[in-house]
């Protein structure tokens, strides 16, 4: 069993698991942090951005000034933003049989995989994952396509040139593989390959393994996966949460007894408690608005925003903010708010019960009804008529490189009354803000990441007790900036195996058993003999039939009638005679007794025609680490007896080997297979 690690981002994983002749891709997250190297795409012409000076080398060479622009000491690529894809060279992705998606954030690279690698398999995901994933992709495509950029920079990617660039461009990895955003057509085609699944549904893959999604408690429809055969179980835990937020709670019990547990998607801010952050968010929001300032919340159109709106719903009256408008601007804002209300079965118990009242599960419905929350597809159109300040705006994209947020940053950045509050943990807020410097508006960083922290992980591992844990390298040591924080790493026994991008991991896993079915009629013909109380043995002669990873013992064809054709007759020759009942062999070889028997073999002739044979005289027994070696010097024969095998090695005397020695061996009690060489 092998694990191919295609992504280095611990919360946007993409791994391929080879297990029992199946090739399973676990998630295909898209690392969008590469976009931070690009200039923002303004919705409305921005004189500031378009007048940024071009960058030139120290020696004054300005050949890159069309591609690279300088802003407050940072250099940005002036081109359509590009994304860093999962590794495509490590393994032939056309051989991937299935892709299992754990949540909507971890499927953003799907079109690149399904549309450009020769992938012909199936993708499995839950319905909310697909629907909200579609919204996220749609928003991304929309954000990028609606600001067409004439030029596409590629010169800077040249390795020799990249070396000359300032950080972080200089250190960007594998820039040559960075790709532009996919199209809506590719998105639709990719999503058409998805097959919907429900929690605890068992899906057979080629008869070899069974995969099952389990609730992971992190987002609507988010899942962990169990991949198991009859005797092995691999759990894939990706983006799970034990907090009480809107989704169904995490199913921990089903993860028990795993041989391997692959653990990804832990919280990106292990030192921040989401409750504290929500408090910080509310306080700062209230302070800004009370002072007449506006609040900008760069966010994804689904996920934490539902919880934030719910907190605000409870908070705004107490904080005297009832008259402040809340705007949610996204091409998919409407769908996102509505989708959240219809996936009742995927919600936590509290919200599910509301549906029976009947009431909308999320209170943002009421905010919309009372006109406190308004949503728009874009800043153009109705929004510009309704826009009132001070206000609170939720809009994307959290990277601040595209989407309506770029406009608000340009609009509000100059006033210190306004505040931008970062709640999404995916991007470094300092890097996100870099192209907007100098900035007068206040910046508050309250990342809300509800995924598991290390304390919860350690409790989870104690609870489910996997034999081995596999995780990204980032989780196997404390964060580099806080190397003394031994509590910020996975602590388990045996220590977790860690992986990094482009690494292939052989999982510590021995396949020991395979399940074989016996056809009823064959089972009927068996005659078990009890060798000790409770244990019976029977010999079986059968044809092993293997198809679709299922092994079946079938009764051998009946011996053909002699009147049959020549071909049939030959077939019947191969059939072993199973009518004769031979003694059953079991137990280990008693070496001493065996040697004595060899010496005295004449006294107990096993086969009548060997009567005249004498016993072996010069027998030497050597003890080895694994068992014994019996040397018959005269006969130039060596008998290797080990715990689970016995070899008889003699050069050419086939008679001696098979008839004399083997017979003596078989007449001793033995259980281990005997191999003839």
């Amino acid at each position: 069993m092998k694990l191919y690690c295609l992504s280095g981002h611990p919360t946007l994983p993409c791994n391929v698991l080879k297990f029992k002749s199946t090739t399973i891709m676990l998630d295909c997250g898209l690392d969008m942090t590469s976009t931070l190297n690009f200039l923002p795409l303004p919705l409305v012409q921005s004189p500031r951005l378009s007048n940024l000076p071009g960058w030139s080398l120290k020696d004054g060479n300005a050949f890159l000034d069309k591609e690279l622009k300088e802003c407050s000491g940072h250099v940005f690529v002036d081109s359509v933003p590009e994304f860093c894809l999962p590794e495509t060279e490590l393994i032939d992705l056309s051989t991937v049989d299935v892709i299992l998606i754990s949540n909507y954030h971890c499927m953003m690279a799907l079109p690149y995989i399904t549309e450009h690698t020769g992938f012909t398999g199936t993708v499995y995901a839950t319905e909310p994952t697909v629907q909200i994933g579609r919204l996220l992709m749609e928003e991304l495509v929309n954000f990028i396509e609606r600001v067409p950029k004439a030029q596409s920079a590629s010169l800077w990617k040249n390795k020799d040139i990249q070396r000359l660039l300032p950080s972080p461009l200089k250190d960007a990895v594998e820039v040559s593989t960075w790709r532009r955003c996919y199209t809506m057509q590719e998105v639709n085609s990719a999503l058409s390959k998805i097959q919907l699944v429900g929690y605890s549904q068992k899906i057979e893959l080629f008869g070899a393994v069974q995969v099952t999604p389990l609730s992971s408690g992190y987002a609507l429809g988010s899942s962990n996966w169990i991949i198991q055969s009859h005797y092995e179980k691999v759990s894939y835990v990706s983006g799970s949460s034990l907090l009480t937020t809107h989704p169904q709670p995490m199913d921990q019990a089903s993860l028990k007894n795993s041989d391997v547990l692959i653990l990804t998607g832990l919280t990106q801010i292990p030192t921040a408690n989401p409750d504290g952050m929500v408090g910080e968010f509310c306080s700062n929001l209230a302070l800004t608005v009370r002072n007449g300032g506006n609040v900008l919340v760069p966010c994804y159109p689904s996920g934490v925003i539902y919880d934030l709106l719910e907190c605000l719903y409870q908070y705004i009256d107490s904080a005297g903010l009832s008259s402040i408008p809340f705007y949610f601007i996204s091409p998919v804002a409407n769908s996102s708010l509505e989708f959240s209300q219809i996936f009742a079965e995927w919600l936590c118990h509290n919200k599910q019960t509301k549906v029976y009242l009947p009431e909308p599960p999320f209170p943002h419905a009421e905010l919309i009804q009372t006109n406190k929350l308004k949503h728009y597809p874009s800043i153009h159109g109705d929004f510009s008529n309704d826009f009132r300040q001070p206000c609170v705006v939720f809009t994307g994209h959290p990277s601040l490189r595209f989407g309506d947020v770029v406009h608000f940053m340009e609009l509000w950045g100059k006033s210190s009354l306004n505040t931008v509050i970062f709640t999404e943990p995916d991007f470094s807020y300092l890097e996100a803000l870099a192209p907007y410097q100098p900035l007068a508006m206040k910046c508050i960083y309250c990342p809300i990441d509800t995924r598991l922290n290390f304390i919860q992980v350690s409790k989870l591992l104690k609870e489910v007790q996997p034999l081995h844990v596999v995780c990204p390298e980032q989780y196997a040591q404390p964060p580099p900036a806080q190397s003394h924080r031994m509590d910020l790493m996975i602590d388990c026994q045996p220590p977790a195996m860690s992986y990094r991008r482009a690494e292939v991991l052989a999982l510590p896993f021995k396949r020991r058993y395979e399940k074989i079915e016996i056809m009823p009629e064959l089972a009927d013909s068996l005659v078990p003999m009890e060798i000790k109380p409770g244990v019976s043995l029977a010999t079986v002669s059968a044809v092993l039939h293997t198809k679709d990873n299922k092994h079946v013992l079938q009764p051998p064809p009946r011996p053909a009638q002699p009147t049959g054709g020549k071909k049939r007759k030959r077939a019947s020759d191969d059939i072993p005679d199973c009518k004769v009942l031979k003694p059953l062999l079991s137990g280990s070889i008693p070496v001493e007794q065996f040697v004595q028997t060899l010496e005295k073999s004449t006294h107990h002739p096993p086969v009548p025609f060997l009567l005249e044979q004498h016993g072996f005289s010069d027998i030497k027994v050597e003890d080895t680490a694994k068992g014994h070696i019996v040397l018959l010097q005269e006969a130039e024969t060596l008998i290797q007896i080990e715990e689970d095998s016995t070899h008889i090695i003699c050069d050419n005397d086939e008679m001696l080997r098979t008839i004399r020695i083997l017979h003596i061996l078989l007449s001793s009690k033995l259980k281990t297979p005997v191999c003839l060489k």
Partner: protein
Amino acid sequence: MLKSQDLSSRILSFSLRLAGIFAAQENCFQYLQGELLPTLFGEAGPLGGAAWTAPTVRSGWVQGLRTLARHPSALRFLAACGAVDTIFSLQGDSSLFVASAAGQLLVHVLDLAMRGPAEGRRGPRARDWPACAQKIVCHIEDSLCSAATPQVTQALNVLTTVFGHCRGLWTQGLWVRLSPLVARLLEKDPVPASHSLVDLLLSVARSGPRGAAGGVGRSSSVLSSDRGLWETLAQTLSHLSPTQAGPLALGILKLQDCPQALRTQAFGILLQPLACVLEAAAQAPGTPGLLEGAAGDSMTVDTLLSSKSACVGLLCCALAHLGLLQPLPQRPSPWPQVPLLGAVVTILRLCSGSAAPTSDVGGRLCAILVGCGRVQRAALDFLGALSQGTGPQELVTQVFSILLEYLMSPESSSMVLKKAFQATLRWLLSSSKTPGCCDLDPHTQQFLRELLPVLQKRLCSPCWEVRDSGLEFLTQMTRQWGGRTGFRQALLASEVPELTRQLLRDPESYVRASAVTATGQLSGWGLRATPASPERPGAQQESLLGELLHILSTDSEGFPRRAAMQVCTEWLRDGRADVAEDPERFVAGVLQAASRDLDWEVRAQGLELALVFLEQLLGQRGSRCPYSVGLPETAPPGVLAQALQVLCRVQLFEFAFRALFDCDRPVAQKSCDLLLFLRAKAASCGSLQEAGDSPSVASVEATLQRWQAGEQGQPLGYLEPGAIVAVLRSVDLEGLRDTLAESSDHVEKSPQSLLQDVLAAVGVLGENEADCY
């Protein structure tokens, strides 16, 4: 009655207690011991029968004996009926109440038995002890030698009570006899019933062997037994685990006089955990530690690192113990203020994750402590306590910076924040105590500049507890520093006053109450939300008064209304300008709101305000000390008449008379005091007495009688000052005051009530009522 078969357990229990009360008198005992007492308490009684299974019967039995055992005859009775053995067995009763009462009864019996022969002497020799005492002491000895921990615990608890409550000299003899057995407990591993052992040793050390002689003029033999005690204490300290030894160490340090070596040992135990933390987190070797040479005590380190709960428990106990010790006059001297400050700052840093220890132990401590709320709370409490001492400026700066870190951190829970606010307040106040300086020093000024934005944010927190503790902090700060220029400037430059004002409309009642108090305090110092317009300087204030009256009359919760009443009272007392302009209108408005209030504390506070108003009109009440002798202050008749007119106009009498019959005793008491004060003032002036027989007086008295009977509907109507004085004279205020001064259960405890209970019990039984008479 006792012969009845279906006697309920409650009645049987009652009978046992009643008989005990009767038999407490020796003559009564003599009368009853013939038949009744053996039937109740002896073998023939409920003991061992079906009724005995009810805990209430066993409890009644113990309580009855406890009341009964007051004279030597009782002791003979106890011995005769074998009660002592039953008490022994009841010590392990399944009902904790019964078991505890049995233990106390045992002590009581022992004391009674020993009191006679030991009176006035140091205690007879053991073989001269009365048989009953011998029996009990032998039982205690057996229990102390027992292998079963519950037995040992029972014996230790009985001894603890003996040394805690019995003052006879015989207790010394008892200690001499039992201390070897107690010391032997220390040889076992683990020490059994360590908690009770600690209690016993402390109880002995506090009083026992020294007995009535106290701390002065003790004989040399007492000292020699003390020496044994100090040795036992020292041994115990070294035998117990660090967690178990903490309470003992604290107890030893609280003792008035004990050997210095023992005090040093005990203080070392308390300091040990902090010393370990300090050493583990030290950045450079050689940093001065808490305990020179012994910082790395392996047992303490092992406990700290063994598990999270052990580490947290030990640290919290150490911090709490040191916090209790800090303000005591007998605390160890020299007090290691600087290393303690260093240790507590280190602990707080480990908890917040901001410390970066280099040592292995430090790293593990960090992993255990990070984010631990219990330790944070204990450490902040202790840090607050340490504010009473001083420290080098560098360390004080560190203290303020860690406090600010906690106040800022979104990770701080509401309880931790509350403690952080409290500690900050204490440090701020102690740091600005510089004599002769009326303004804040630059460090404090700088800290305030950083603190106020944090406070501002906390006042906007979605968590009401946080808003509440922020407001409490603000109130206390303002109370202390409202007059300091630096504070005033910083506060007025912030949005804190405005936010506080907005919190008057908070959805949470506790927050509204705190906001009312804070706003009252701020406005008391003229720290208004925004400067009032120059044309109408009082406009802002007026509206604040309006807002308070609004809260008083409309708020659905009691806390904000109580707070509003307090603020109004303070304003009236301080003679604030806008109140002083028309106090009559102000008082009338407030009293009207208070009179309708359902909350008794609001009504009581209303009477307080009325009293303040009265004092302003008629002069102070004089010394409140009942023993002081002073000339009665007299008010000129003209002033009194005018004052009474005013009081009538603001309807103070209607309010006070209604309160006189208030169903809540404190309100009635307060009203009684107020009216007595008024009557005393009026008595000194005879000019208003002629209204004595006017019809209005009669009608007022009639109304008051109806009110007393519970018919509160009818109003008093407008009253003439003359009628008031007459009514004041006619009402038996002193009698009322005496009745009100009785405890609230005086009716239940009266003999009449007992008789009623007996009658009721008989009534339930359905037997002939006449028999009882």
